[in-house]
């Protein structure tokens, strides 16, 4: 009889600690990979994604890629970047996902 309360309390405390750990771990994001342990305060799109947008604009407009340059970019959500491309003076907005799929291009 005297050991019974302990037998009940221990599983409860274990469950409580486990739940707390699960909640905390959900709040703390995983550390970046070693090669990604630097960034700038303003998060721009990775260079390869910016250039995939340039390539898409070149194909759509017929303008030579040597006259097309990404001039700004930003992260819209965890999987999507917006890239502004200058194509011989014409500004085009491009949406590209983190896998390199160009979702849309349209004049600004």
């Amino acid at each position: 009889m005297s050991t019974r309360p302990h037998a009940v309390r221990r599983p409860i405390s274990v469950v409580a600690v486990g739940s707390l750990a699960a909640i905390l771990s959900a709040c703390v994001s995983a550390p970046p990979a070693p090669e990604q342990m630097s960034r700038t305060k303003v998060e721009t799109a990775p260079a390869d994604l910016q250039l995939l947008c340039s390539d898409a604009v070149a194909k759509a407009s017929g303008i030579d890629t040597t006259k097309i340059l990404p001039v700004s970019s930003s992260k819209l959500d965890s999987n999507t970047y917006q890239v502004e491309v200058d194509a011989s003076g014409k500004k085009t907005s491009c949406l590209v996902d983190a896998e390199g799929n160009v979702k849309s291009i349209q004049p600004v």
Partner: protein
Amino acid sequence: MAAGLAVSVSIAFAAGTQVYNPQTRQWIDYDRTKAYKYYKLHKQVPESFRKQVVKFRTAERPGTIIIDGNQHFLYLVQPGQQAIRYGIGVGRDGFGWAGIVRIGRTAEWPTWTPPSEMVARDTKAAKWANGMPGGPDNPLGARALYLYEGDNDTIYRIHGTPEPWTIGLDVSSGCIRMNNDDIVDLHSRIEVGAKVIVLMQGAALYKGV
């Protein structure tokens, strides 16, 4: 890395770079003072600024150089959707530029001749107005890749540096600097005429486009 990054957090933030501290699980501002102390302690720059092969999805030909001035990386495109990535230092505020240029020529242990504008504003540069011979103290370091727009020298270079701790920072007058081991490696891999794409959000100047 963490020990080095923990050395100092007292100096005001200058560049936009941040580096992750795995011990505190926090991003911290990475300025010239912290960079110097980190390098003094570890004899190398933080891991993300070291030479490494990375995935790089591109239609550009192998041998093309792509510079991400914002993130402080230089990519040399390789076959198979990969690139060799090196850490770089770039132009400070007002000295950043973007464009599409090419490697016009290269030099080993180059002479440094500061442009007249630099001579006018910098007394250290004025001393070498007629040219500083190549060597370990020369600001161009072990190699220089001269960037041309068509047949014209842009006055910008990709070069080595006697200050390797400045990799990852916005410190130059518009040139792209690499540590000497990396510029020697890059120089050995590129060809004169190679296309160079410089990406820099908010750049004050555009070349070749």
